[in-house]
Structures are given as C-alpha cells and as structure tokens.
C-alpha cells in the first residue's frame, strides 16, 4: 500500500483535521484512507481510539463531544452500513455534531467503468436516505471541504460525512 495517492496526501489531510481543532480520532483501519496513517500516527497531534467494529465509533465520539472534546470518526464506507443504529442514536436522538471521514470503497470517477461492488453502489443512496450530508474529497485541492463539513456538523448538530474518493493503489 502506498503512503500517498496521486492527488491526495496524508500530511495535507492531517493538517486540515488539526486546523479544525480535532482532539481525538476514533478509527478502524481501511485501505482507502491508509495514505493518512503514517502522519496520523507519527505526528502525535491526536489521541487515537482504535475500535474493534465501526458501530462503536460514533457512540465513543458522542461521549467525547459530551465531555467537551472534538473527535473525528475515520473508517471505511462499509462501516457506515454497520453503524446504522449508531448514526440514528447520534443524529436523531442525541443531536451531536460529529465529523466523519469515510473511505469510499471501490469508488470510480463518475462510476466509469461501472462499479460492481455493492459497497460503492449503496453508500451515497444510504447517506441520502438517512439524511446525512456528505462531501467528496478527491484531491489536495479539495481539503477545505473538511472545514466546510465540520462547520456544517457544528451548525446542524448532526454527523456530516466526508467521503475519501480515491482509487486504491497497491
């Protein structure tokens, strides 16, 4: 796995996350986001909370928010499906602002060639159905989207997702 993609670099994304005031990253490793891991782990800018299953991530983040911290949730898009009840808890019951950075598994530009992985087919329709606002992060030129999503989360007191849209490079 490479530590950076052609158009998206770990340091740039981590810089932006730090700029947003994130204190904790609640995460589960994912190939799509792996370009971020080296700076994320070596720079010691955040407390890392690694979970066993994605459904734990949002409730942990909720506890951090309630305690006055600013977490970021980081995992793969398949974890969104797993986290359905947790999203309901945080978005519809607790009404807490949480920024989520989610690896878009099997993403293809404009779905060309057509995707066959159901994780890619379902992720955007599912987020729409659950009323979760999302943005696409495709290159370093887009990193301000992370700040936009963060502000949106704070304003609406809901989780907001930034989908990391890059093709995996092995």
């Amino acid at each position, binding site marked *: 796995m490479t530590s950076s993609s052609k158009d998206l670099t770990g340091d740039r994304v981590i810089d932006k996350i730090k700029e947003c005031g994130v204190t904790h990253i609640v995460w589960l490793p994912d190939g799509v986001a792996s370009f971020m891991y080296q700076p994320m782990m070596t720079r010691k800018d955040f407390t890392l909370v690694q979970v066993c299953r994605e459904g734990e991530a949002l409730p942990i983040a909720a506890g951090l928010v309630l305690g006055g911290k600013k977490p970021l949730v980081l995992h793969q898009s398949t974890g969104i499906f797993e986290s359905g*009840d947790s999203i309901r808890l945080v978005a519809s019951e607790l009404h807490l602002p949480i920024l989520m950075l989610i690896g878009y598994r099997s993403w293809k530009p404009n779905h060309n060639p057509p995707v066959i992985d159901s994780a890619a087919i379902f992720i955007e329709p599912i987020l729409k159905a659950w009323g979760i606002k999302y943005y696409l992060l495709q290159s370093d030129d887009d990193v301000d989207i992370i700040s936009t999503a963060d502000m949106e989360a704070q304003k609406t007191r809901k989780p907001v997702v930034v989908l990391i849209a890059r093709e995996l490079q092995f």
Partner: protein
Amino acid sequence: MIDSFEAVKTISRHRGDALIVAEMTTATELPVVSTRPELDLSFNWAAMGKGSSLALGLALARPERKVFMLDGDGALLMNLGSLVTIAQMAPPNLIHFLFNNGVYRCTGGQSLPRAGRIDFASLSQIVGYPNVYDFADLKTLENKIEMIINQEGLTFVNLQVTPGVGPPFPYVPVRDVVERFWSAL
C-alpha cells in the same frame, strides 16, 4: 442474587459527583433514585449496547471525573468488542458495572444466548481490565462499593442480579437528557 433496583440504589448513594451512563433496565431504575439526575445519561431506547462505548468517550474526555457505566448483559453481548476497545484505552476513571440477569428484560424476559454460562468477570479480566469484581449478594456490594469507587484504574463489576419485573420502558426523548447533562458539565 442481587435485586437490580437495590444495586442501582446502592451505586447511586455512593456516586458523589460521578457521571453515570445507564442503559436499558437500569435506565428506567436510575431516574427513580438518582441523587444527581443532571449528571445522568439514561438511555432506554437510544441504541442498545452502545452505552459502554459512549461511557468510554466520556471517560476519555473527562479524566478528572469518575464515570460509571451501568450496562446490561444483553446489551454488552450486542457490543462485545467494546470490552476490548475499553481495555485498550483503559481510562482509569471508568467503572463498568454489568447487571447480569441472563435475559432481555425489555422484550419480556427471553433468555440470552448461553445465559448463566458466560463468565463476564473472567472475560473482562482476559481482555485486560485491571480491576475485576464479581458479586452475588447486595451486602458484599455495599461493603465494597466505597473501596471500588475510590480505587484508581479501569474497573469491571459483574453484578449477578435477578431478572425481576422492574418499571415499564417508557420512551423518553433523550435530547432533553443530553441538554441537561451538557449544561451541568
């Protein structure tokens, strides 16, 4: 066996200014006896099994406060990985009480998978909780509770409780609970 409601009363009496996350059955019992309701997060319809994860986040965010998790065995089985995640982070201010009654009380008392044959105390010890207790009678809990609360280090307390009937499970909008809690902090 311990009456669940009596155990909640005991914990509440000794809590001081601890923050409490209560899930399922205990979430219906705690509001009745709580000495500091503004410091309680009682969720009975919110997200079964996720209370322990929320308590972990709270304990990490507020290391200067004690945080009590009042968990159920059915709830913990739904989020069993959280035991490992909690042990990995090991917040020294978190006390994880497990109300182990062997049933899903909120749906009418159906038995859990392998009810009565899962040693949750040993499980928590194996995954790395440094302090582990297992109580089957109220008197022992009452005798030990102050020591447990004042002890430093992540702690797991298995409480062997009777299934009981308990109060009903009314739907409580948790937004109000959250706003009150947030203001109190």
